[in-house]
């Protein structure tokens, strides 16, 4: 058989029954390169097998702690019939040939479930075909098992390594059969993470740990007011510091290059910069809040209308409330960092990026290079939560390298990240509701007032209806006859960006807290009130019922304690949470969170549980503690003493249940966030009678 050309290869897959993998299936190394040692069989960009039988799975999403370097390989290994212990994992660089690589929107598993299984199944079928040719038997006489193709008639075996040559010459099958989920050996099992041992032994290299030979260290001084710029600077003190080798001006500030991180930090602090504070120097949180507040008495632009929400509901019980949340920082434990080498019109970067393709094109644009001349290597991220989706740190690193002609590792200090990062938008929410004499909801209105991330970053001209403001509040599962979701985009100079769960951090807080208020106005139990509004076949209803049962919703609690419930749909998964809190002397302690998720087919249940526990703790940080304040156009907080996050002893007991079903794979990493704030705040109301409409919680 002849070797396939690249063009034919693509055609085969376009025609195949599972033809959605075009982008993903352009061969990476060519098919089989004679003379290479070891010889490699690579029927997919996600997979290669060498003639020693080593199976390497190329993970194209970033490992942020969610376990993707384990769960994606599990999908391939399952179909390839290879023992888990014999799998190697490799991280892909940023490149369009892998398809979408953005590690956000809880999509790594959702979007890769089928392509990665198909990659494994394709290799399996081709190895079977290769064995059949070698033995001169029909493929039906052969099957794959634990890294071998077995001949049914005589029990003879050929290892995958022995078949690499032959398989590489074969055409790629148009259709491959995927395993029946009932036969899964790996998917659905609690598999240990591939990256854990090296990380806990201190051996794993995160972005900040990487060293490239000949590399220098860099730090940047940026304008304290967002949007300002340097008029002039004096670096004489900086240059007298031992270890400082250069000072260069870049678009966002003044960069100091040194032979150690510490010298670069000291050099940066010693710079004397005359800043033009720019147009925002007098902006503070109070002004931003007033801008949001000014929209409260407006209707906003329609995002979603159901029934006739503008009718007269005056014969019903009517309630209104305003909710609000502040800006938030992602504050991953690893501050922003990037290594860059820019030389001869080419750039090579090493970054803990969540979005290496975006970083590649943004750096190319900033430097005026072709994208093909920019290489982005992806390194372990020490936390990300959305912070490492944007490119500004990588652009800075590339600019410093270009200006100095040196390979540099840029390290942001903690203070740099707190003050010069990107933030979850602050928002206000006007809620309106009406319940009839029987306690049934007849109207629900939600006016979301915030900066739109997509508007600020990309599409200022898009109408509100098409913006992201409605995420987590439109298309509610609840059957309420009249619904009006509207929005007002209020621009701000504060750079906003995607946060773990994005608008699900704020919209469900307002929606699910206000539904609690409606339930109390209707004199109904908040769980029963929600349950009655959900259709019988609703997956949200199923998790809600399960969470109520599991938490002992009706069990009495002692004085000072309260229970709150909330549920949400988020990234194609459904979640319900019941929080139990104690309120004593206006101090809140979250004792327990019961969490039920329906995320469809589960790949690694232990990772799902870990992500839910983490999401609960992450959300609890902003419910109880975290807040970014704007003063004089910049961020007031600078480190973890001012921007507080949850600690060990504040972590509640968490009980998790994962619904068992075979629905399409849903998201997990962010879903656990959506219901937590309202569940906790509803519990605080149950415990204390105090309704929380503003985060972080402050009781008095």
């Amino acid at each position, binding site marked *: 058989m002849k070797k396939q050309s690249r063009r034919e290869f693509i055609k085969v897959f376009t025609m195949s029954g599972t033809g959605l993998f075009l982008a993903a299936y352009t061969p990476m190394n060519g098919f089989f390169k004679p003379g290479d040692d070891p010889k490699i069989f690579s029927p997919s960009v996600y997979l290669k097998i060498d003639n020693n039988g080593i199976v390497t799975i190329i993970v194209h999403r970033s490992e942020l702690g*969610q376990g993707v370097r384990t769960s994606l390989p599990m999908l391939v290994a399952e179909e390839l019939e290879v023992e888990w212990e014999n799998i190697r994992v490799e991280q892909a660089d940023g490149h369009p040939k892998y398809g979408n690589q953005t590690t956000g929107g809880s999509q790594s598993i959702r979007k890769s479930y089928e392509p990665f299984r198909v990659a494994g199944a394709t290799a399996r079928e081709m190895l079977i075909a290769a064995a059949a040719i070698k033995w001169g038997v029909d493929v039906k006489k052969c099957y794959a098992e634990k890294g071998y193709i077995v001949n049914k008639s005589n029990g003879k075996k050929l290892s995958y390594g022995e078949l690499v040559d032959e398989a590489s010459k074969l055409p790629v099958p148009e259709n491959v059969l995927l395993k029946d989920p009932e036969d899964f050996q790996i998917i659905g099992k609690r598999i240990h993470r591939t990256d854990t041992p090296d990380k806990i032994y201190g051996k794993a290299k995160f972005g900040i740990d990487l060293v490239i030979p000949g590399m220098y260290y860099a730090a940047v001084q940026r304008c304290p007011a967002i949007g300002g710029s340097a008029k002039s600077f004096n670096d004489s003190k900086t240059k007298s510091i031992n270890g400082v080798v250069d000072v260069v001006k870049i678009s966002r500030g003044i960069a100091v290059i040194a032979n150690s991180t510490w010298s670069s930090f000291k050099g940066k602090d010693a710079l004397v910069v005359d800043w033009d504070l720019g147009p925002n120097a007098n902006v503070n949180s109070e002004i931003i809040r007033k801008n949001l507040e000014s929209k409260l008495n407006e209707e906003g632009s329609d995002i979603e209308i159901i029934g006739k929400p503008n009718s007269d509901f005056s014969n019903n019980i009517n309630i209104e409330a305003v909710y609000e949340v502040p800006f938030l920082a992602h504050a991953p434990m690893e501050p922003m960092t990037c290594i860059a080498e820019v030389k001869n019109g080419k750039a090579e970067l090493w970054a803990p990026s969540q979005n290496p393709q975006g970083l590649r094109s943004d750096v190319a644009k900033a430097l005026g290079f072709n994208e093909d001349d920019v290489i982005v290597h992806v390194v372990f991220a*020490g936390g990300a939560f959305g912070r490492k989706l944007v490119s500004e740190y990588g652009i800075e690193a590339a600019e410093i390298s270009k200006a100095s002609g040196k390979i540099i590792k840029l390290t942001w200090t903690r203070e740099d990240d707190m003050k010069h990062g990107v933030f979850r938008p602050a928002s206000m929410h006007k809620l309106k509701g009406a319940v009839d004499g029987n306690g049934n909801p007849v109207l629900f209105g939600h006016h979301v007032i915030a900066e739109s991330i997509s508007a600020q970053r990309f599409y200022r001209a898009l109408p509100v209806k098409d913006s992201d403001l409605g995420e987590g509040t439109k298309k509610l599962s609840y059957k309420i006859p009249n619904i009006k979701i509207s929005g007002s985009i209020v621009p701000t100079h504060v750079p906003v960006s995607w946060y773990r769960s994005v608008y699900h951090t704020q919209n469900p807080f307002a929606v699910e807290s206000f539904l609690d208020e409606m339930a109390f106005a209707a004199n109904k139990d908040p769980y029963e009130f929600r349950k009655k509004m959900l259709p019988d076949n609703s997956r949200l209803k199923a998790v809600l019922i399960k969470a109520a049962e599991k938490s002992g919703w009706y069990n009495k609690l002692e004085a000072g304690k309260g229970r709150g419930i909330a549920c949400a749909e988020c990234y194609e998964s459904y979640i319900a949470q019941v929080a139990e809190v104690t309120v004593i002397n206006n101090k809140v302690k979250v004792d327990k969170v019961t969490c039920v998720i329906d995320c469809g087919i589960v790949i690694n249940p232990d990772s799902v549980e870990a992500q839910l526990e983490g999401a609960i703790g992450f959300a609890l940080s902003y419910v109880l503690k975290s807040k970014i304040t704007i003063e004089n156009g910049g961020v007031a907080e600078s480190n*973890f003493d001012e921007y507080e996050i949850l600690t060990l002893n504040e972590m509640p007991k968490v009980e998790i249940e994962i619904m068992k079903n075979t629905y399409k794979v849903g998201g997990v990493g962010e879903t656990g966030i959506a219901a937590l704030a309202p569940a906790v705040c509803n519990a605080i109301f149950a415990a204390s009678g105090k309704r929380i409409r503003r985060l972080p919680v402050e009781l008095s």
Partner: protein
Amino acid sequence: MPEYSLNVNGKIRKVNVEEDTPLLWVLRDTLGLTGTKYSCGEGICGSCTVHINGKAERSCVLTIKDVAGDKITTIEGLAENPDHPIFKTWIDLEVSQCGYCQPGQIMTLAALMNENPNITKKEVKENMNTVLCRCATYARIDKAIDKLVEEGK
């Protein structure tokens, strides 16, 4: 630049750095021991925890001058015994998520349990409360502490 002689993980290492250089950056940049992490730089978060003469200390707020002559152990030193019960428990319970703060968590715990074999769960948790984890792996850290303290008795 002055020369300092450091005892790190049982080996004597000579380094030439400014006297105000934090131990953290000597370990990371000069000695290549990057298991000790930078996160806050102010001794708030605990990611940079090492052992100084067996006690858990935050290497970002200790200068090289402070520790010359002391016995310093980093996560790499502790990991010379990968079968240490803390590592085994961390893997069994799959505590780590992004993993960045975990060396600091483990070093803090190892020192506490080593210093006082009869330490209670409550005492451990009070001490560990200042080691921050943004992934909020706290539920499993809590379980790991319970297990290790129980087994230690």
